[in-house]
């Protein structure tokens, strides 16, 4: 390899030669310039072998100069910032850039797994399906690890990404996708009319192919014209320029996804700057000016380093001032060959031959070749030779002669494919255009237009005219009068093409899909084996399924398949392009939603106190709920929970229940709505009283439970479970707005407005009497079980008091406006301590509800009816309510259904587990003998052993029976006694105390 030899041209290019940048590739140090990409800098240093291919580990060089690159994928950066599969052709060079080649071992030049190439018969199309079929165990132990080693992409970073990503939404009248000549003129025309314009381009400089060609526009060089256009656009207040930004997807309603590489061009993002920014752009009109992508021609060893797309050759010469080789053979089926030999000659690079697939070279090309002293040949390149880099090309002329030409660069052009991806993301079907041998956009999504090369117009004159027209039209469509703009003028050019795809007859591999290593022979094999539909071809050979989505491969493959099947290309069809246009890092989609910030956290009013105490929090939906409050000397959570439960049962405990859903219901028809929502009767509920209620879904299953308190004549306040708060609120709104719109009632969610605490235990009234202001009498006679009142506490703070019990003890719930929540909690804690009480968390709450046989989430699991959970008798027979009709179906009223009962282990030392299945004592543990399952289990401090709730077939009729609780997941098999689900105080004497 000619490392160290400079391939940098003496002058030219849009690079800043006064700013040298050092970088390393595979541990070797090199120098490039500001304005280089990693690819141009590698080429400038004579590095041609940059990668090994995916399957056969073939040596690969740089094929393109853009985001379509299938070969030159590298690992960029190191450690936590390591980024695999980065295209060297789009990675901007920065000082200290550190890149590694991928998929080679031990080194690029000597890759042991290149023997895959020799063993290639087993790696042909469909090898996954054929070779590794038998025996099954070999797959896991041998084949898969082997394939993973042999075929692969780069390594992802194995530490959390230290950088930040952000998301932003933008609105505009006109979005311009691509900043080439058509995009720049479109943006200018729209901008001058006053429309809000967003112009996004992949590259760090606007201009597209103009930056890579030697053209003159309005008496300026192409590069000067681009910078004058950029300056004009940047000066408009109504224009947002987004360089380094790829619009990767078109979505519904004029919404586009784009990713801006904010800091990818520096080693480490500056403080406060994200690495990348995900844009959601909502546009009234969109102009796709995404340009076109050049196609290779398929011939033997066409993937060798040194075979490069002709347009890329011109890019490296003109934009980066780099000679991609010393001696070139140009191979083309179109008039672009003309510009290529002219640019090569202007850069002083030897052109050994121009091989034109057409039988007659157009006059203007022949003349130019003669003037430049370039040998013009009508024929094809059949193969190139040179393993790690092209050394010579074998040519077959149209009249059958063979010749060999020494060269180190083959500039190949098979024509251009318009970049139509954005037009197909919403199911638009492209149309084949014979004149340019390529697909062009078909029916467009609403609000979208296409201009320039993306529309199949390859001459610069047409791009400038179409762009200007499209920009003015888009602005006018959004209500801005566009003043007429002169179309910039430029010279004529020739863009004729004669379709040519594949040089047959080489004994070497001829690559179609470079990234996934799919050859012309693979396409032929797929066809022979019957995979003739383009969708089958794709899946059988993996063609087009790599990260480049086959941008340089798909149309060539279609053409080869079409020839084999004797159909035309449009008859053969085209696979659908889907977003993203180029790979987008998951980090960009996640944005700030990582780790704890994945979702917002809701903090209950006792949160600060809990943190101060070292209390343990548990995530319940979005809520961070206190679970238990360990004290010194307690061995584990069970110790703590046991102490909290015993304290409540003997003294008093307080628990933050603010997470319960709360909904305020007001209006003359409140009770009418409530009656239809709850299965039990509510009309008899008096002002100042609360009642337990059960809501069903329309299919008859229990949806939620909670309490209804009547605070006034037409004012009710209801609670829901924590988990279902949002769902129940939506359901109630649906009932009010959609099912019974005539009802005069309003609903408001008040979950976050009220801090609400349970105060439970024999001393709870004593505790509250020091909290509730003395003018309010809360003695049992005036404030009995299920009383509800609006009152004040702590010297005039508005409060609500409910006498409700979830624990089975004498208990209350007190609510104050959320802003007093922290203060009231601290006061309650202090007063509770004075009475020998304590705070308890959701764990103790759960234990006590199981001891009391109250159902909760595990029982209200969407598959249980009221009868299943022992609440069937609550259902009103006097009214209709949601779920009544379908709840009466035979299957739901079957007496055989598993029904709620309690369980005690026969051996009291055994632990019970939710999830265990019930099997009759002497029956075999089979699915057919399954009689239900344990829904909840807890260690009961009150009973001194584990207890459970569960759904058992005909449960209530089997009290006293012993059944197996079989848990194959944990390998447990216990005998349990069927008991009443109420383990504590079945008469309810305590809660009425």
């Amino acid at each position, binding site marked *: 390899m000619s490392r160290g030899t400079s391939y940098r041209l003496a002058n030219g290019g849009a690079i800043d030669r006064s700013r040298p940048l050092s970088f390393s590739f595979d541990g070797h140090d090199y120098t490039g310039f500001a304005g280089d990409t990693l690819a141009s800098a590698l080429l400038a240093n004579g590095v041609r072998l940059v990668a090994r291919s995916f399957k056969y580990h073939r040596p690969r060089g740089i094929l393109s100069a853009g985001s379509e690159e299938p070969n030159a994928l590298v690992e960029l950066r190191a450690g936590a910032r390591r980024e695999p599969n980065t295209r060297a052709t789009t990675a901007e060079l920065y000082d200290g850039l550190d890149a590694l080649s991928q998929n080679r071992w031990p080194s690029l030049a000597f890759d042991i797994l290149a023997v895959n190439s020799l063993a290639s018969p087993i790696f042909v199309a469909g090898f996954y399906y054929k070779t590794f079929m038998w025996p099954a165990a070999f797959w896991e132990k041998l084949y898969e690890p082997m394939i993973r080693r042999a075929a692969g992409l780069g390594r992802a970073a194995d530490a959390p990404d230290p950088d930040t990503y952000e998301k932003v939404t933008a609105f505009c009248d006109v979005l311009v996708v691509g900043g080439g000549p058509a995009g720049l003129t479109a943006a200018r025309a729209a901008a001058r009319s006053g429309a809000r314009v967003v112009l996004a381009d992949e590259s760090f400089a606007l201009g597209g192919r103009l930056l890579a060609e030697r053209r003159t526009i309005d008496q300026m060089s192409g590069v000067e014209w681009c910078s004058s256009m950029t300056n004009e656009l940047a000066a408009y207040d109504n224009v947002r320029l987004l360089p380094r930004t790829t619009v990767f997807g078109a979505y*519904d*309603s*004029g919404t586009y996804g784009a990713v801006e590489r904010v800091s990818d061009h520096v080693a480490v993002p500056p403080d406060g700057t994200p690495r990348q920014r995900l844009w*959601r752009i909502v546009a009234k009109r969109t102009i796709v000016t995404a340009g076109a992508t050049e196609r290779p021609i398929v011939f033997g060893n066409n993937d060798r380093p040194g075979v490069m797309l002709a347009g890329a050759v011109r890019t490296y010469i003109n934009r980066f001032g780099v000679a991609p080789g010393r001696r070139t053979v140009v191979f083309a089926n179109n008039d672009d060959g003309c510009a290529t030999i002219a640019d090569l000659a202007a850069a002083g690079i030897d052109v050994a031959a121009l091989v034109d697939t057409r039988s007659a070279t157009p006059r203007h090309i022949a003349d130019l070749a003669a003037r430049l002293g370039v040998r013009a040949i009508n024929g094809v390149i059949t193969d190139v030779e040179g393993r790690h880099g092209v050394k010579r090309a074998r040519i077959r002329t149209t009249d059958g002669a063979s010749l060999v030409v020494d060269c180190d660069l083959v500039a190949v052009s098979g024509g251009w494919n318009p970049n139509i991806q954005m037009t197909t993301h*919403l199911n638009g079907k492209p149309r084949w255009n014979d004149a340019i041998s390529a697909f062009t956009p078909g029916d467009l999504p609403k609000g979208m237009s296409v201009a320039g090369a993306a529309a199949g117009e390859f001459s610069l004159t047409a791009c400038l005219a179409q762009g200007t027209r499209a920009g003015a039209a888009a602005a006018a469509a959004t209500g801005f009068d566009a003043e007429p703009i002169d179309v910039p003028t430029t010279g004529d050019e020739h863009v004729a093409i004669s379709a040519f795809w594949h040089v047959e007859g080489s004994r070497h591999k001829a690559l179609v899909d470079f990234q996934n290593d799919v050859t012309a022979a693979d396409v032929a094999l797929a066809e022979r084996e019957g995979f003739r539909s383009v969708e089958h071809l794709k899946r059988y050979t993996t063609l087009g399924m790599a990260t480049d989505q086959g941008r340089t491969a798909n149309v060539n493959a279609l053409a080869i398949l079409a020839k084999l099947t004797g159909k035309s290309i449009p008859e053969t069809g085209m696979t659908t392009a889907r977003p993203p246009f180029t790979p987008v890092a998951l980090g960009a989609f996640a944005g700030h939603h990582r780790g704890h910030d994945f979702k917002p956290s809701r903090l209950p009013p006792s949160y600060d106190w809990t943190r101060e105490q070292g209390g343990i929090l548990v995530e319940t939906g979005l809520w961070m709920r206190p679970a238990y409050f360990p004290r010194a000397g307690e061995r584990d959570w069970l110790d703590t929970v046991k102490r909290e439960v015993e304290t409540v049962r003997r003294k008093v405990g307080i628990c933050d229940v603010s997470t319960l859903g709360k909904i305020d219901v007001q209006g003359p028809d409140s009770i009418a709505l409530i009656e239809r929502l709850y299965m039990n009767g509510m009309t008899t509920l008096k002002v100042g009283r609360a009642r337990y209620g059960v809501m069903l879904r329309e299919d008859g299953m229990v949806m939620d439970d909670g309490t209804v308190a009547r605070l006034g004549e037409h004012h009710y306040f209801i609670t829901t479970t924590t988990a279902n708060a949002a769902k129940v609120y939506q359901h109630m*709104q649906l009932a009010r*707005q959609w*099912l019974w*719109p005539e009802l005069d009632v309003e609903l408001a969610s008040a979950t976050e407005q009220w801090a609400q605490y349970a105060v439970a235990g024999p001393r709870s009234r004593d505790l509250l009497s020091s909290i509730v202001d003395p003018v309010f009498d809360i003695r049992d006679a005036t404030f009995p079980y299920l009383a509800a009142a609006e009152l004040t506490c702590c010297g005039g703070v508005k409060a609500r008091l409910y006498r409700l019990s979830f624990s089975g003890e004498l208990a209350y719930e007190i609510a104050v406006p959320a802003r007093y929540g922290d203060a009231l909690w601290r006061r309650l804690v202090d007063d509770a301590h004075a009475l020998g009480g304590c705070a308890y968390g959701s764990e103790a709450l759960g234990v006590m509800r199981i001891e009391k046989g109250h159902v909760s989430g595990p029982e209200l699991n969407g598959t249980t009816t009221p009868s299943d959970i022992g609440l069937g008798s609550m259902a009103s027979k006097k009214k*209709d309510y949601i779920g009544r009709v379908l709840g009466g179906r035979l299957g739901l009223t079957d007496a055989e259904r598993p029904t709620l009962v309690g369980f005690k282990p026969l051996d009291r030392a055994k632990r019970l587990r939710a999830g265990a299945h019930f099997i009759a004592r002497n029956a075999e543990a089979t699915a057919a003998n399954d009689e239900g399952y344990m829904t909840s289990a807890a260690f009961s401090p009150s009973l001194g052993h584990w207890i459970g709730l569960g759904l058992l077939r005909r449960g209530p009729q089997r009290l006293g029976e012993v059944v197996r609780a079989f848990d194959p997941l944990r390998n447990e098999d216990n005998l349990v006694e069927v008991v009443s689900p109420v383990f504590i105080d079945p008469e309810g004497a305590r809660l009425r105390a």
Partner: protein
Amino acid sequence: MRLACPCCGERSLDEFTFLGDASVTRPDPSADDAAGAFHAYAYLRRNAAGPSDELWFHNTGCHAWLVVTRDTRTHEILGVRLAQDVALARTGNRKDVRETSA
């Protein structure tokens, strides 16, 4: 996708929650065939390929239920109405339907 809420204006999809088909109406629970009618109401859907009326909830907006007419083939939004107005119009109750068309 974007929906034009009659109360809030055009908003992004992620402010809304989808429920389902708005072409079904809750049957008369006292009718003789209530069991069959409720079965159809709860379970049977046309699943049309084309314009369909759907119920959406403006979850992080005004809390209105909306009847959104969407072409299921293209996701084109053909109109958005307040569900309450649609329901009232259906029962002949009152008010004109407040609507925004996309």
